[in-house]
């Protein structure tokens, strides 16, 4: 038996046998909401924006080793792999959060990997890390502060929130974060709403003064804990940046989505990239086998 709950109401209860996944998805999100994100066509001119060379980081338990790839302007590079194969480290190292043991990350000709006490350039990189509660929000602070956290160092000395409250409300509405209360503490949100909150911050949810299109967008499991329609909404925003010319690094466990939306797929296994495959040549079996470590 399968029971479908939607917004606190029992929608349907029927036998699991004979139930198709599309029918289940329709029940879960409601007929009208099911809209798949458009696939962004691969860029024709391959001008590399992001170059990663020989990147190594981590310790004996979790490491990445000699990672190298490039992402062109407007390109979506998907990283496939069973989680726990170094995805979090890779994302942190490329985002410039942790200091790599070796290698470099070049965005538009300038190194952005971390060398000193502070992240090299957080303004041109949008980053949705894995496990947002630990990695992406200040749990004790409210949603308004969390949405504006990347702008705090540019605030005036005497805090003036001004229009920030309204902007926060709009951003929460735009990304469907519930409850829509700017004063709610981030730690009180559910996992899915937290994920949406981080997306709202990193994918330009703030209407005024929102940054120019970031050079690089890194998304590590950006739809973890989201329902089908919310997932598609995040995809639309995330891949929308590719059509605006950002380089998109997208780490996912969902093979079907990777095969649909990524322009190239690199398979990460035990901290190394085993192979990078173009969209046209990618199929489930090859990538599935690579994810298990088969060369």
């Amino acid at each position, binding site marked *: 038996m399968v029971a479908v709950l939607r917004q606190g109401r029992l929608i349907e209860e029927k036998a699991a046998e004979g139930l198709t996944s599309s029918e289940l998805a329709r029940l879960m999100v409601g007929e009208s909401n099911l809209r798949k994100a458009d696939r962004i066509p691969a860029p024709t001119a391959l001008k590399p924006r992001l170059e990663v060379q020989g990147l190594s980081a981590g310790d004996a338990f979790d490491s990445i080793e000699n990672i190298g790839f490039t992402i062109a302007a407007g390109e979506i590079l998907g990283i496939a792999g069973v989680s726990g194969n170094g995805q979090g480290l890779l994302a942190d190292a490329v985002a410039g959060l942790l200091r790599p043991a070796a290698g470099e990350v070049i965005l538009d000709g300038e190194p952005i990997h971390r060398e000193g*006490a502070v992240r090299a350039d957080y303004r041109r990189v949008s980053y949705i890390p894995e496990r947002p509660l630990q*990695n992406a929000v200040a749990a004790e*602070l409210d949603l308004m*502060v969390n949405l504006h956290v990347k702008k*705090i160092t540019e605030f005036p000395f*005497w805090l003036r929130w001004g229009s920030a409250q309204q902007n926060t409300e709009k951003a929460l509405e735009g990304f469907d974060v519930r409850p829509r209360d700017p004063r709610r503490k981030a730690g009180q949100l559910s996992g899915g709403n937290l994920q949406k909150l981080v997306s709202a911050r990193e994918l330009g949810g703030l209407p005024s003064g929102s940054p120019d299109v970031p050079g690089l967008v890194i998304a590590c499991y950006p739809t973890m804990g989201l329902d089908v329609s919310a997932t598609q909404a995040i995809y639309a925003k995330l891949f929308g940046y590719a059509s605006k010319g950002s380089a998109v690094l997208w780490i996912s466990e969902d093979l079907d989505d990777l095969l649909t939306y990524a322009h190239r797929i690199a398979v990460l296994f035990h901290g190394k990239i085993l192979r990078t495959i173009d969209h046209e040549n990618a199929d489930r079996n090859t990538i599935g086998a690579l994810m298990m470590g088969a060369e």
Partner: protein
Amino acid sequence: MTNRPWLRETAWAIGTALLFLALCAGFFLLLGKHPLELIWQVALGAFGDKYSATETLVKTTPILFCALAAAVPARLGLLSVGQSGQFYLGAFVGTFFVLRFPAATPAFIALPAMLLCAGAGGAAWGLVPGFLRARVGVNETLTTLLFNYVGSLLVDWAVYGPWRDPNNLGWPASPPFPEAAKLPSYLGSRLHAGLFIAIALAVGLHVLLTRTRWGLMLRVMKSNRKVAESAGMRYGLHVVAVMAMGGALAGLAGICETSAIQGRLQSGVAANYGITGFLVAWMAGQHLIKILPLALVMGAIISASDALQLFAELPSAIAVVMQAMLFLSVLGIAGWRKRKGV
């Protein structure tokens, strides 16, 4: 739920005070004393006449400074217990310069210079653990604790050795401070300007921590260092900054006590002010304004215990018990409120 939070806070504060009095009454009853009469005696001992009231404020001053010194680093999530060592360093460095002021230095130069030097001395004693924490991740609680011993021994070395005043006939203390380097006292009592400096700093720092960008950055860094760093904040820099600020505050306590109360540098000048201030800061939940009344109550208990020894024939250890009662009521109520979410 009232929509006037200050009203609710005041009601809880009164409730906490009543619980404290009830606990004290129960304890006095156990001792076989008349509880209300003894509480009255304590109140008289703390505030009954001009002498008691000013003595209470005299005890409050270093506690207030030290509480601020513990609260500022805690705003970044740092647990500094080095107030006593920083107190000694403030007294040490301040005295070093005071003893070298030219004889004719006027007070309006001598006093600010003395406070500045003492602040710098205390700041240095906070800065080193802060730097170690920021750079190599050494636990700041351990280093500040150990620095307390070094600070106390440094003052001992100075007053038993090179700075000992030969006119003291063997008594270990520095030569007396010149008049120009003594903080002004008021009401013909020992109440001195340090109290007002401490209150002004508490209010100023409260505004700084709650109304400015820097205060907000500290809150973000305390809540999630990784997020703060990914938003361009330099965690290590701010660790050093708050540790140095905390040190400077405790250092001011040291020089105020040395200059206004003792009039010379002596061994053991920090007494228990460091740890008492630390406790006050934690009772106040690091809230710089809530520190003010709690420091006053602590000062009152310490000051009244002297009177109690004389009139009620009770051991001075009664002050420690009453401090514990205060601790129990404040933290008990705060913990209960947190659990119940009221």
